[in-house]
């Protein structure tokens, strides 16, 4: 479950995007996942995180959470349980 800040490319949008962090959250879900995700995204305003989440609730929770918090869900790949999220700029 380590974050590895890096810049690489990923198939979000079907085109390459820069990835600033890659976090495999494993089986974390619900509040466990969201509180940690918030902390990590807040530390990288404007950056893109490639997130892997295997919790069965995440396909429902993460799009809603992104809408509630104005972080941009760029793409969800259900088959590989991956999400690409752009951290909002203003965390005030």
């Amino acid at each position, binding site marked *: 479950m380590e974050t590895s800040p890096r810049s690489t490319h990923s198939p979000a949008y079907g085109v390459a995007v820069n990835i600033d962090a890659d976090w495999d959250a494993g089986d974390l879900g619900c509040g*466990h996942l969201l*509180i940690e995700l918030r902390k990590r995204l807040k530390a990288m305003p404007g950056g893109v995180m490639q997130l892997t989440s295997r919790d069965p609730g995440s396909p429902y929770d993460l799009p809603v959470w992104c809408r509630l*918090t104005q972080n941009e869900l760029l793409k969800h790949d259900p088959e590989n349980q991956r999400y690409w999220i752009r951290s909002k700029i203003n965390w005030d």
Partner: protein
Amino acid sequence: MSSKFVVSLTSAKNDTDKATVAFVVANAAVASEKKTVVFLSIEGTRLSQKGYADDIHEEGFAPLKDLMKNFVEAGGQIFVCSPCFKKRSLDENNLVPGAIIVGGAKLVEFMGDGAPSVSY
């Protein structure tokens, strides 16, 4: 959409599953940028005491003390029911960070202009 959220919790070691899930949901609420209050009443007030939650760890969940710590560090507040606290002779000098002892008016004020809530 309301910017507030209340989690009401009436259990502690008498139902550690409820106590744990309440704080998981509270973490989800505060992470979703809601002004979130966990209202501890009845047996739940025991969780206001430093050290009390240290040995509560439900299988499949983070330890309760970590859930409570994360909740407060993210900006969550813990309201502790004053009469429930006094009935149990708890120690007001041994409160966990983020906890304040309140009367009903404080909760009524917080919820007064509308706040969704969930109870455990």
